[in-house]
């Protein structure tokens, strides 16, 4: 089954990190993504630019509304995602638990609708 792992974390905390600390996080991500790719689980994944770059678009009654910022203001923001292909939810949860940001943020595991 395919799952989208959405990585939510406090982007301000990430921005406040030192260069070295951030480097460590990226290295940990690299290692995990290589391992998943080698096992054939990785379909895709990216880091998103911070929510300060976000734009929200809605069309209501034919009228287009474009506003700055993310759709919802929350403590943790969507900062990246993995798209994976594994046997079942438990396998997806095991991978989510290995994502570096899981220790400070949260990973939402959502199956792709069949």
């Amino acid at each position, binding site marked *: 089954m395919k*799952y989208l792992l959405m990585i939510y974390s406090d982007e301000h905390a990430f921005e406040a990190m030192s260069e070295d600390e951030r480097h460590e996080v990226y290295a940990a991500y690299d290692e995990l993504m290589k391992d998943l790719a080698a096992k054939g689980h990785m379909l895709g994944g990216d880091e998103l630019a911070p929510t300060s770059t976000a734009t929200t678009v809605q069309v209501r009654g034919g009228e287009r509304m474009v506003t700055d910022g993310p759709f919802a203001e929350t403590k943790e923001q969507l900062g990246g995602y993995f798209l994976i292909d594994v046997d079942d939810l*438990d*396998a997806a949860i095991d991978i989510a638990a290995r994502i570096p940001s899981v220790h400070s943020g949260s990973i939402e595991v959502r199956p792709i609708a*069949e």
Partner: protein
Amino acid sequence: MTTVAEVVDQAYRDDTGRAVATLIRVTRDFDLAEEAWQEACEQALRTWPHRGVPRDPTAWLFTAARNRAIDRLRRERVGREKTAAALQIAELEAMGDDMHEIPDDRLRLLFTCCHPSLALDARVALTLRTVAGLTTREIARAFLVPEPTLGQRLTRAKRKIRDAGIPYAVPSREALPDRLDGVRAVVYLVFNEGYEATEGELIRTDLCAEAVRLARLLDHLIPDEPESRGLLALLLLQHARRAARTDTDGDLVTLEDQDRSRWDHELIDEGLALVDASSAEGPYQLQAAIAACHDRAPRPEDTDWPGIASLYDELEHIRPSPVVALNRAVAVAMADGPDAGLRLLDPLANDLDRYHHFHAARADLLRRAGRGTEAADAYDRALALVGNDAERRYLERRRAALIT
């Protein structure tokens, strides 16, 4: 003489979990599995009265359920589903008449029903429905929710199992300790709902008995797991007091006033043997050891209160919670006098202000300390918060006794 209905009833009680678990493993379809088993039992009720009860009723029922499942797969699977169904039919047919002898699939079923990605109330309902074989109506009645609500809860849970890809498997080694704890939490919750119903009647013995059965099953499926054994011991030692916990009016009788000859000594012996055979380290083991201290005492004054206080102390170390601290304070009061207990209660007032047991316990200690007016206030506070009728009447009686 046992009637056909009684034989089927017994088989239904004993075999539902195992039959349904195996049918779900093969078909991955909870509804199909439940219905096939249901139909097999109905078929037995129809045919056994004139054909006679088969020599091995369980084997007969398993085979009938297997055949019903095959029929349904043939009839109901269409289009793309046909390929998967053909494989499932082949697997069911390969079992021949020996489905009742294949290894137990109930452990997978328990882990699936208690998966943490299901809501807690759904885990409870699903476990009682599929593993324990209770009907939707029985579960709805036990949890005081309308039957359609409970039915919807079950339907949604089964849909999530399918759509989210919740596996039908025993978890990986890394995940197992947590998941096992999750299964125990569900069993304990079922027991507590029966033991101390949040609303209405005080004890629903049926739910307690189901919880004991589930705890026994878990201990049987993964033997020598200290905390599972601790949970079983705890439930046995508490369930043993059921007959003495209420009087003829259905009113609560506290441990102190219970007629101990009405305790179920067979269950107590079984529970005590489990406690004595293991150490007390995990939370369920510690709680079982505490229950054992009560059940061992022939009279209330024989209770080892210092022992109970120190067990609560250990419990608070590994699972700190205001409720555990409350129980420890009560035990200390029994061991060292009400003032010592009250000193431990005061710092909990903030956390437990909405918890009627806190005010009831405080009222009792104030009464013992001879501070009647303060005790009356505390009883009033407890009465304002209590939801259970029998406990309300108990608190009213205690408050009245205070004034006269």
